[in-house]
């Protein structure tokens, strides 16, 4: 592409970027940037609010949104279809459908995929990426395990017709008695047969279950944030690390160590990846894989030489609920092909103050994390220190990129959708 074409494309993108566009309407940040603190040159607006417990979200090529909601116990609408008809960034049309609580949602080709806590469904879309028949959900995957813990079936898709579904471990650290002091880890951990990993299914085949899919990666306690990196053609996931090192092993870990450990890890997966849960965890201070205390560890003994190292590590318990590789052109060059990560915010740091409740940017170079992560957007939770998660006014959960390069962030406390734009 020569320079002239590039400039034309850039201009065209600029002119058409802000939704359908009505003369006189422009996209501008809210006066208070929707309550967020952002790097210089960025602004934010509240695109929608009051959607319920909004988990993940996805944007169509037309700039319309689908937002997945949980917590209705299958009584209310759990997918919102949102449109901004005049291009001012504010959602002015909203329709709801689908009765199953859950977290995952993604538009891929001419289908909208959405998950419950046991199944993955898809809806056929028309040429404007609108669901043709909201009563016609095709079940793609069914019968996945749900035992009240790490039950969200977050997923993503690649460009070769495959679907990757997180099946979270229904346990903290695979003890004989879950979360019970003095109970040892099961050897081998039987949970890994049906959970604690990422399963690969076909994106277009109905009614698949365990036997039809393949355990693509194992040793992952729970993953809510995952994204297919199209530049590298590789699956990246964010693991939620184990809880309660101090509660279960007070002689080995004090409350401060237990608040920071283990790291929340980013993994670059390939078929057959083993990330080590429950046998090891990653210590971001020692930069080592440490044997879990349930399996004979003491906080220092290393373990799992055959286990894959994380691509990057973050402070403990911050709960990374979304990762998104930024491919847009609206934001400055440094953000391109880097990763945004939404940290939902911790609870397992008490009695220490909680941490997270922000969106982080992780720079990448040559397909690998390069340099320190930085806080990109904060202020979701409101002013002051968060001692318990119930104090947070908003918690970032899902991330999506608009066709113009806007970054959308969903909040699962009050159901706010933020739109972050760059305007310099």
């Amino acid at each position, binding site marked *: 592409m020569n320079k002239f074409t590039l400039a034309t494309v850039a201009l065209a993108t600029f002119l058409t970027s802000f939704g359908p566009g009505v003369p006189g309407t422009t996209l501008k940040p809210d006066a208070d940037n929707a309550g967020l603190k952002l790097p210089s040159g960025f602004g934010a607006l509240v695109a929608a609010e009051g959607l319920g*417990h909004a988990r993940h979200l996805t944007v169509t090529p037309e700039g319309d949104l689908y937002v997945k909601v*949980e*917590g209705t*116990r299958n009584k209310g609408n759990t997918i919102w279809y949102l449109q901004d008809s005049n291009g001012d960034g504010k959602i002015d049309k909203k329709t709801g459908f689908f009765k199953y609580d859950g977290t995952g949602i993604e538009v891929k080709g001419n289908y909208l995929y959405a998950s419950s806590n046991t199944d993955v469904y898809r809806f056929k879309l028309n040429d404007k990426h609108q669901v043709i028949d909201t009563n016609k959900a095709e079940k793609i995957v069914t019968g996945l395990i749900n*035992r*009240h*813990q790490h*039950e969200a079936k977050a997923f993503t898709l690649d460009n070769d017709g495959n679907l990757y579904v997180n099946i979270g471990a229904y346990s903290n650290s695979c003890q004989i*008695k*879950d*979360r*019970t*002091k003095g109970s040892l880890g099961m050897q081998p951990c039987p949970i890994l047969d049906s959970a604690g990993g990422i399963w690969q299914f076909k994106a277009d085949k109905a009614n698949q279950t365990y036997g039809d899919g393949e355990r693509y990666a194992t040793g992952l306690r729970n993953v809510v944030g995952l994204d297919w990196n199209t530049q590298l053609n590789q699956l990246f996931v964010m693991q939620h690390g184990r*809880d*309660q090192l*101090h*509660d279960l092993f007070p002689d080995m870990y004090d409350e401060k160590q237990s608040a920071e450990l283990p790291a929340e890890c980013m993994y670059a997966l390939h078929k057959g990846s083993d990330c080590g849960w429950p046998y090891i965890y990653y210590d971001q201070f020692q930069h080592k894989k440490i044997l879990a205390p349930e399996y004979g560890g003491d906080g220092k003994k290393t373990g799992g030489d055959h286990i894959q190292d994380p691509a990057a590590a973050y402070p403990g318990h911050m709960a990374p609920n979304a990762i998104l590789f930024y491919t847009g052109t609206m934001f400055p060059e440094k953000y391109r092909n880097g990763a945004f990560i939404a940290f939902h915010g911790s*609870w*397992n740091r*008490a*009695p220490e103050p909680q941490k997270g409740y922000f969106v982080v940017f992780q720079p990448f170079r040559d397909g690998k994390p390069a340099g320190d992560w930085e806080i990109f957007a904060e202020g979701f939770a409101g002013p002051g220190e968060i*001692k*318990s*998660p*119930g*104090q947070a006014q908003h*918690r970032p959960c899902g991330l999506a990129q608009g066709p113009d390069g806007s970054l959308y962030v969903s909040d699962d*406390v009050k159901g706010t959708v933020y739109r972050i734009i760059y305007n310099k």
Partner: protein
Amino acid sequence: MRRIMAALLLMGVSGMVMGQQKSAANKPGATPGAGSVTASIARGKVIYQNICLACHQADGSGVPRMNPPLIKTSFVLGDKTKLITIVLKGLNDDVEIEGEYYSNPMPPQSQLRDQEIADVLTFVRNSFGNKASAVKPGEVKAVRAKLK
């Protein structure tokens, strides 16, 4: 109706306090006030901090849609047998509180002694804005016997 209930509750509490003080006084070598509700709450607070706080949080607010709050809920203020049973047996079910659902499993805490469970529940029933009668070790003992 409400006033009568409040009066009954008050009588119940004071009766219990007196009863417990009597039994404490009867025990040779018992620390003064060891059987009082105040002392039970103080002991219960330590147990709460060691065992319950990580999930239910310092302010009893729990974790949204994961770990239930302990603030003025019917689980905490209502039927003591039900409450004691949750502590002894744990809970692995979706629980609805004021329209929100909580799903994280709670492990059984049956390793705690009757007195410890009574103390921690008395603390919870009289903290975080809660005000309810004390739980007595005898009540825990009775529930434990039934569960066996």
